[in-house]
């Protein structure tokens, strides 16, 4: 039986801001994006704001209705990353198996170090105490025998608490909980499960697994295993990088996009970042996917193949624009768009050469050009070399997705 801890930094962004601004500690505080650029949603809030009903993800004006005295601050991701790193350093004192899940959560497998530091609860309490003293923020920790229940445990008591879900007796603790508490039961899955009368984790666990697979596909079985405590996923060490499946960037624009030219400008910035990230990983993509969301928040994705694997932004932009032209007829202006490189292959892999076009020489020239651009940018900064089209509408293009957005969402299934 393993012993796994899930450590969750409580109200992370807001706690960090409150630590640096002691005078705000007794006021409702929220960290929010910039409403001027239409990123004005709540990213995190402190306990006082939470009690007033402020929710993560809601618009700033909604939150201000609930909490009139709400103090809002813009996020400082560099600071949060530093805290995240410092917290992880503390975890490494107890085990080398630390798997981050986002910026503020980590799984720790302490099975091998229990004979040194004591049982799971002792280690959890020690970590809680140290984080509080050394970083001035609180964590809640779930201790269990698999990753899913450890995460469930850390969500049960907040803030600054340890929750045990031992193998003996997990049924009494976990099974009465609503099925939505389980990782990966979102809005639509929970709706389906509720239709079968599966409202609690216990009911999900006791139903015949075939009923679930017939109705939910392979996800049904996965959720059934989760509910029965049969998840066997290991806690990965941080350097066990798993293969990247796709690389994408997206943005919500400061104003609605109204024509293909607007979209091309934003696609240019996004594709430049995607292409640069592909080159960093030594990968090429064989396909491009675009993501469109209009001003009523309806969204769709479309994808297409490239003629040959590429990490050139020009080719990615061309494909993205082609997909847009073929699939969107401007019923409504667009609010958010994204570009994703899919079907990744290694840069040095063999490719099918074309018998008729002599594009390969030109391609080589292009590739060495982008590498030169990369090295200029790494020496003198991203802004030192930009496409001229970025000057057409600087409000739309004044962002750098590669370096500004350092926090990427992660998946449990790597």
């Amino acid at each position: 039986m393993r012993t796994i801890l899930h450590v969750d930094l409580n109200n992370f962004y807001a706690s960090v801001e409150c630590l640096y601004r002691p005078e705000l500690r007794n006021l409702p505080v929220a960290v929010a994006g910039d409403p001027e650029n239409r990123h004005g949603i709540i990213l995190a809030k402190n306990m006082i704001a939470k009690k007033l009903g402020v929710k993560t993800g809601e618009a700033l004006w909604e939150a201000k209705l609930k909490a009139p005295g709400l103090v809002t601050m813009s996020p400082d991701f560099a600071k949060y990353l530093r805290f995240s790193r410092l917290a992880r350093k503390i975890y490494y004192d107890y085990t080398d198996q630390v798997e981050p899940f986002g910026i503020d959560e980590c799984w720790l497998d302490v099975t091998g170090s229990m004979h040194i530091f004591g049982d799971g609860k002792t280690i959890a309490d020690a970590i809680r105490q140290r984080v509080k003293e050394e970083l001035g923020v609180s964590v809640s920790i779930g201790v269990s025998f698999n990753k899913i229940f450890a995460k469930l445990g850390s969500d049960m008591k907040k803030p600054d608490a340890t929750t045990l879900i031992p193998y003996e007796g997990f049924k009494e603790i976990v099974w009465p909980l609503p099925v939505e508490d389980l990782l990966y039961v979102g809005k639509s899955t929970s709706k389906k499960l509720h239709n079968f009368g599966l409202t609690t984790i216990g009911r999900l666990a006791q139903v015949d697994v075939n009923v679930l697979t017939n109705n939910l596909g392979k996800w049904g079985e996965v959720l059934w295993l989760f509910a029965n405590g049969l998840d066997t996923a290991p806690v990965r060490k941080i350097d066990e990088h798993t293969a990247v499946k796709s690389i994408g960037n997206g943005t919500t624009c400061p104003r609605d996009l109204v024509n293909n030219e607007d979209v091309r400008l934003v696609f240019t910035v996004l594709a430049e970042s995607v292409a640069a990230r592909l080159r960093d990983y030594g990968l090429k993509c064989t396909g491009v996917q675009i993501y469109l969301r209009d001003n009523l928040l309806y969204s769709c994705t479309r994808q297409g193949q490239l003629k040959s694997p590429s990490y050139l932004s020009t080719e990615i932009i061309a494909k993205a624009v082609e997909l847009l032209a073929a699939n969107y007829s401007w019923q409504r202006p667009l609010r958010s768009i994204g570009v994703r490189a899919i079907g990744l292959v290694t840069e040095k892999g063999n490719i099918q050469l074309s018998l008729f076009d002599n594009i390969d020489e030109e391609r080589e020239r292009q590739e060495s050009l982008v590498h030169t651009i990369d090295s200029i940018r790494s020496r003198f900064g991203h802004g030192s070399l930009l496409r001229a089209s970025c000057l057409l509408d600087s409000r739309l293009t004044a962002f750098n997705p590669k370096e500004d957005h350092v926090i990427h969402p992660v998946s449990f299934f790597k």
Partner: protein
Amino acid sequence: MPRINLTVNVRHEISGNAIPTSIVWEDGRVFEIDKILDMRKAASLKAGGLGIRYICRICGKTVVLFNDDGLWFMER
């Protein structure tokens, strides 16, 4: 603000430890640190910040200094 940013004279030892030897007060007076009573990583809830905390004795008084990545400050 209960936080005072300070100029601090520091001795860097072979072990990598940074030991503050004296502080320069706001009016320019220099105070020797007589003794360091405690040295550990900690957050300052009072002054707002974190780093390595030095509890020092200066002229018979206990003073709490913080080294936040090279930025030194004192809790009032």
